């Protein structure tokens, strides 16, 4: 195995009493797209700034391309960063922006103009070199910011929520573009975001970060289908959260009862003993909805309820069901056949889900802190 482009080794950062990053270790393979996903304040920005060199870790080491970055200032690291608001230089033309780093390295004027032009061409902005930064659209600026960094051929490109400021349509478009750019250049990207959809769509690997730690690192599929902690289950993708007490445990099958008396079968993740307070997570698309109870598969526990609200959102349409015995709310994704397009609020329905796809965590043991 080759040396990873980025290796973070027991890095700690504290601000006064608050621990921003708590003894974190991970590595990022060469050429991969690695995302750090977490809510605001989880320490992901601090981590990124430590990799870039703007913040010094209290302890631990960061290795980039196998080389320790201790005492290496940001301007000498083989790392470049795309800032949240891009930070393009308004006092310079697009071409000068892209050539800025080359000029600092002492590349001759004609050579750097040529290389800046070539880089702009690669990101689809041929002929924009003479423009002012404010003449570009949001998406074009994004590409200039990336071109400005990639022209220096960094080992690692850091991206600090660069899509956050864009509107929804453009954001969707830029997601695809970023992924294609990364594939085309083959540079290792480290991307931080609080938007789980960005992380899932873009990344080869995602680390879910919470309170200064990684809750789980894995492929988007692993995180989605096999969350290791309740935090990951709750944060990545939509999930129904069912809190209750484990009534019986048989192997990894847990029968839980909610405070309002709803009985749900689920699969244990980690140690769960009878009597433990537990939380189960069920994906809306793991549940099957029918008007008539008899139409549901016979081998799974059935639940009944009434439609509480209809959430029409095209392919992402869902309904909120109020469970009959407990009035708990449960979200079920609608199949895309249009079969349920005439559902009404208040209509009685039946639903079921495979207990294997209802993941149950014991409350205290697995969350550890908080």
């Amino acid at each position, binding site marked *: 195995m080759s040396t990873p482009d980025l290796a973070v080794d027991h890095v700690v950062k504290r601000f006064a009493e608050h621990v921003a990053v708590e003894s974190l270790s991970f590595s990022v393979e060469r050429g991969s797209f690695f995302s750090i996903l977490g809510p605001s304040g989880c320490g992901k920005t601090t981590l990124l700034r430590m990799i870039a060199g*703007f913040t010094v870790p209290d302890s631990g080491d960061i290795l980039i391309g196998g080389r320790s970055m201790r005492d290496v200032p*940001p*301007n000498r690291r083989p790392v470049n*960063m795309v*800032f949240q608001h891009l930070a393009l230089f*308004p006092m310079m033309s697009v071409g000068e922006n892209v050539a800025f780093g080359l000029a600092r390295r002492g590349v001759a004027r004609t050579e750097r103009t040529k290389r800046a032009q070539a880089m702009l061409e690669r990101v689809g902005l041929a002929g924009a070199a003479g423009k002012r930064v404010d003449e570009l659209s949001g998406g074009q600026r994004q590409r200039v910011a990336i071109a400005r960094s990639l022209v220096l051929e960094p080992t690692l490109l850091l991206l600090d929520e660069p899509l956050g400021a864009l509107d929804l349509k453009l954001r969707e478009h830029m997601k695809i573009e970023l992924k294609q750019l990364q594939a085309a250049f083959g540079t290792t990207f480290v991307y931080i975001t609080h938007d789980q959809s960005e992380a899932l769509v873009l990344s080869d690997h995602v680390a879910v970060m919470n309170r200064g730690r990684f809750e789980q690192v894995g492929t988007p599929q692993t995180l989605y289908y096999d969350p290791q902690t309740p935090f990951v289950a709750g944060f990545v993708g939509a999930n129904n959260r069912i809190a209750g007490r484990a009534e019986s445990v048989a192997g990894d099958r847990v029968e839980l009862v909610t405070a309002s008396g709803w009985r749900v079968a689920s699969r244990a993740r980690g140690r769960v003993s009878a009597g433990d307070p537990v939380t189960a997570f069920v994906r809306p698309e793991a549940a099957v909805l029918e008007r008539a109870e008899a139409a549901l598969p016979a081998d799974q526990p059935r639940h009944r309820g009434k439609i509480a609200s209809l959430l029409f959102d095209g392919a992402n349409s869902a309904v909120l069901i109020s469970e009959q015995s407990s009035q708990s709310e449960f979200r079920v994704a609608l199949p895309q056949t249009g079969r349920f397009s005439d559902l009404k609020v208040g209509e009685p329905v039946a639903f079921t889900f495979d207990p294997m796809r209802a993941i149950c965590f014991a409350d205290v043991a697995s969350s550890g802190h908080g």
Partner: protein
Amino acid sequence: MAERQSSSSWRARAVLVLLLGPALLWLLALIILPHVDLAFLSLRERTAPHEYAASLTQYRTFFTEPLYWHVFVRTAALSAIATALTLLVAFPMAWVITKVARGRSSSLLFVLCLIPFWVSETVRSLGWLILLRESGVLPALLVKLGITAAPVELLYHDATILVGLVYTSLLFMVVPLVSSLDSLDNSLIEAAYDLGANGPSILRRIVIPHAVPGITAGCIVVFMLTLGNYLTPTLLGGKNSQWFTELIYTQFIVRFNWEQGAAFGFLLLGLSTAMVALGLRLSGQRFVDVMRRT
């Protein structure tokens, strides 16, 4: 409908005129009228008691009398030096206030810059006298430290005048610099650093280009104030300070030669206009833009 609209626009115009009225009146009565009068004064010559004739004698005298244009050039040069020094001192101050200090300490530093201006300029300048005169604090200190054998007179040097002028002008440079550095996004500095720039190249490529309007505005204001300053050069430079405003004062008050004084006034006005125009041309700025930014 159209009628109502036109009547409302007429009213808006009337309100505008009324609001601008006092300013226009002030401009006319206190600036334009006296200057027109001074212009006429400067262009005449007394041929006999109470008899005047139009002539360019006053301006001719200025060029034929070496003392006059010598003082004129000296005033311009020292003012330019004082402006440059003020910029050099004020820039790090503005930098600390906007980029180094955070929150309360930043406002506190700004207030500290302001505090000396609560005292009148005369009193402040007299303060310098107490510090610098031969029997003053600083010469005594120098003797005590063994740097000089006997107390030296620190007043009445060009350097003393410069110190006084820089001190007096500092705030007028700090304010526009603070406002222009404040608007500089820190992430631009970080981005430049990230792309391989170091301190000097960030200053040259990012900070100064961004701050040019503030620098220009500050320099214009400080240069004009310095050029037209009377008190500081007189108090700190004494009799041989040779500041052009003193020549004007002498002509008007001592010699009672209003014609000559008026001509000098116009020459000073021309000088400051020319220097400001030159400064704007060099920094590639437009006067209106610069003044809007401050």
